[in-house]
């Protein structure tokens, strides 16, 4: 089974067999560093903590410099970023539970404790930016866009014993986060507002460690994987690209054409032109394509062969 983005719109219950169904057995308990590069990521994150409340130069933000249209568009953009980061606040801990239950190297659990905190900081800072621009918006303006930003199903997959952890990490970290990181690097180039730029840089610094985690993990285990396992990883990555990324999870211009996605794209354009963050299709497209190509190359070196992907706005990549 590959990753799924199916999700009910109602608060409901579901009875599911999960990898948590066995009794806990934490012993023998070890905290040896079996993946020292990941332990070092934990230590680096500990050294490089920041606080959205005190480390961002909020006094340099002057909302009055911008038009009403620009402020509204930027509110929408930073609110959407907050929703996206919020998703990781529960996805990251779900993966951490899995590391513990599967008794994966303790380095992974330790790193994910601070990774989750970083995701909280990102949600906090994006929400704060939206607030200062006129007010955080608590849901997509048009319901149609919820399908693009609601979830990418990682939390459910993390608790599903039938979905291999390696596939989730390859899809979520080495693919989705890699794409997000490259977009952040691009945003650093095109964002002119000093506060928006500072936020982008803080987040990008954390995301670089998040991406490194995924590749360090895959590199450490790739030689132990069977061809079937590599095929499963490939399927998970394909699902993440086709069903999530190419559906507009990170980039609204990739979402299916409808009035909602057109409104989001327009808000992105206004935000971009104001230098308040965000980007546009013309600027982001070559970056997105280059990232996908690089991911394919890096996966190939690990014995994972990704197919070509097609999208109306990208062609075949």
């Amino acid at each position, binding site marked *: 089974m590959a990753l799924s983005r199916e999700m009910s719109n109602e608060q409901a219950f579901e009875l599911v067999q999960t990898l948590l169904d066995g009794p*806990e057995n934490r*012993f023998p308990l070890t905290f040896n560093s079996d993946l020292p590069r990941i332990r070092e990521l934990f230590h680096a994150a500990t050294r490089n903590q920041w606080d959205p409340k005190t480390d961002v130069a909020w006094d340099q933000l002057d909302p009055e410099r911008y038009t009403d249209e620009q402020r509204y568009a930027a509110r929408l953009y930073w609110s959407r970023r907050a929703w996206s980061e919020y998703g990781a606040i529960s996805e990251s801990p779900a993966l951490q539970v899995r590391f513990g239950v599967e008794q994966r190297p303790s380095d992974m*659990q330790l790193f994910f404790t601070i990774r989750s905190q970083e995701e909280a900081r990102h949600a906090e800072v994006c929400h704060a930016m939206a607030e200062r621009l006129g007010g955080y918006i*608590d849901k997509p303006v048009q319901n149609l866009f919820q399908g693009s930003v609601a979830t990418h199903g990682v939390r459910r997959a993390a608790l599903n014993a039938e979905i291999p952890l390696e596939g989730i990490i390859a899809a979520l970290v080495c693919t989705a986060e890699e794409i997000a990181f490259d977009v952040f690097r691009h945003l650093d180039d095109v964002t002119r507002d000093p506060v928006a730029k500072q936020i982008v840089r803080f987040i990008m610094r954390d995301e670089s460690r998040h991406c490194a985690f995924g590749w360090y993990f895959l590199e450490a285990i790739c030689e132990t994987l069977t061809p079937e396992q590599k095929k499963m990883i490939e399927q998970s990555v394909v699902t993440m690209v086709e069903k999530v990324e190419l559906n507009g999870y990170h980039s609204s211009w990739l979402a299916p054409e409808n009035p909602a996605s057109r409104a989001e794209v327009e808000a992105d354009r206004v935000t971009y032109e104001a230098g308040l963050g965000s980007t546009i299709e013309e600027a982001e497209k070559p970056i997105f394509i280059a990232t996908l190509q690089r991911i394919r190359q890096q996966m190939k070196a690990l014995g994972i062969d990704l197919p070509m992907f097609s999208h109306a706005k990208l062609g075949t990549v």
Partner: protein
Amino acid sequence: MQSANGQISPPPLSLLVERRFPLEMNVTLPQIRELYDSGKAGRWNPDRDIDWSGLAADGYDDAVRQAARRTWSRLLWIEATGLTETPALIVRFCMETGREIDPKFFLTVRNTEEAWHIECFDRIAQAFGGRIARPADRGYESVFNRGLYRRVLDSNQSLDSYVAVHAAFEDGLELELCRTWRRHATNLTIAAVLDRVIADKERHAAFGWLYLASRAPHWTAAERQLIATELAAHIHGTELKGYHCPWLAPEHAAAEADADAVTAMAGLGAASRSAEEDTLADYVGNARRRLAEFGVTLPGFETNRMRAF
């Protein structure tokens, strides 16, 4: 369902299905947001902020070193609970419609602090001869293998009751025991570690009690009774089984209790049985009074291992 090793597996898990939007991210519990902010402001680094040279483990005789490594290994087994329980609690808060953003933010900081505690405890155990991977008596292991991560994700488990038992009561008890160990610690490095841990656990315990205070006005009588029942079950099934105080369970934790006595005498981060008994009894008494303010009646407890409390 029965697993290969003969243990009974639980039935399928009843998981909540998330409804994300509208996504409230404004502050609704300001005192808990303040805990989150003070946690970020109080961030520390075990490697940089602790003077590890003061540990001087080689200066203690072998019996003391062996005792200290067992004491700190056991504290490690306890603290390791947070590596699966706290993330599961965050997931539960995120899945349940209407739960506030402030606890979600706070719990991410709590989990990082638990990771730093683990690094410190592990480093101490290693310095005194090496971490011990499991209890001396296998019968003691079930006290730690509580499966809290599964319990909190189960939609049949009341989240408020879970917070009452594990975030308010249990974290509060851990805080008071840490303070007791700190009062008896003479080793400079261990005192410094415990000072950091206490500062963090003050926030952890405050979170639980503040959250209860925000929820209690809305509880029904049945919910109050459920909380009292689950608290009593926790005290009988976990505390009196020696989870925090091994001297309460000499039938399977004698090695750990003996080690703590030696560690306490050496000032290396434990306390005598009588000091821990006072701490436990006083804490439960205080907790009983606080719970009564929320309409929750905690019963009295009797055991032949300590005075009634």
